[in-house]
């Protein structure tokens, strides 16, 4: 699975970056680069079978365990 990640992201980048570079939109390039790095790292970790943190589980833990305001079934 991990071997698919690199070509997929390379192909996506080929569509996204050239226009921004031609238009010299440096702010957008920086933002997009940061997002690509995060997404690539997470996708690669996932493909290697590592556990990705679940945003929803974090929110759930804050609501139910920290704030203690959730419903009980």
């Amino acid at each position: 699975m991990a071997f698919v990640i690199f070509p997929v992201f390379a192909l996506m980048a080929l569509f996204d970056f050239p226009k921004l570079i031609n238009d010299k939109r440096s702010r957008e390039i920086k933002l997009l680069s940061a997002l690509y790095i995060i997404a690539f790292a997470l996708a690669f970790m996932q493909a290697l079978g590592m556990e990705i943190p679940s945003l929803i589980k974090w929110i759930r833990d804050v609501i139910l365990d920290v704030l203690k305001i959730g419903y009980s079934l």
Partner: protein
Amino acid sequence: MKISVKQAGYTAAAFIFTSALLTKGVYMYLRQDSWVAVILSFLVSLIFVYIYATLNKWFPSKSLIEINEAVFGKIIGKIISAGYLFYFFTLIILNARDISGFVGYILPTTPYVVIMVAFIYTCSWAVRKGAWNIASYGPLIVFVSLFVIMLNGLFLINDIELNRLAPAFTFPPIKYIAGTHLLTALPLCEIFVFFMFVPYLQKADGLGKVLFRGLTVGAAALLFIVIRDIVILGDTLLILSQPTYSVIRLIDVGDILTRVEILYAGILISLMFIKISVLYYATITAAARLVKTSSHDYLIRITGALAVIFGLSVFSAEYEHMDWTNRAAPIYSSFFIMLLPLLTLGTAAIRGLNRKNK
């Protein structure tokens, strides 16, 4: 091209129709009384729609991001907008997970990753085409859905037992509150996301009409679905993972008309396409407006990729999904779609921004 009130209203209704996937949550609380929660949540949602409409009247043609900056100032406004951006993104993740779970239920050997990538890719295509294109499918999908829902109800008429609605009003008040809160915060008031479509509406202050139309049509269909499920399934509702889909599987007209659940599955997938496309569009426009960039096209692919990555790891088991939907999700959503709009309205009124804009 700008979106008409009618188009946006039906798209909002389509948005609510998808909550047929979430009815299990309210059945867990109220079983045969679940229809009470639908009516109560509709009434509560009307109050919030009025609040959203008032905000839109005070700040015509402005999206949520511009309203936050106008009301709370640059820094606090940006922090609140970033919160909304996160909320919209989590809604994409959760809905992508819902539809993958549903398709995975029909096609159990298909991996979630294949379903999610195909689905998000299709939605990204719609998002690239713009707000008008997403909304233009709304009326068609709503009318086809209503037709299929009515037709299914007609085919199941022999399985109806009205005594399954009894006994009524036997649960403790907290269960009615929890069920009403669940339906208000999750499917009904989620149409708040249409605030991001305001700049694309033909009528700059027409959000109230859009949301009212969507809420009324959506809640009416939801009420019909919930009552139909109860009178046909009774207590079996609680042991089925997809009660609404299971009801339609019962259709058998003269051994000829069977397996019509595939029609319902097609409708639900189309509705989810609308819902996720709306959320996807709201997310990327919110991000682009937040960082003040002229275009949002460059964010489409990477947002989709992130949605798939987080969507795949959102829940490790079905009980976690149920636990989230019933216990924490209403509280989480309420913060963004009830508390923050109220706070925005109150702050705008105190600062006299309503008068300034008039």
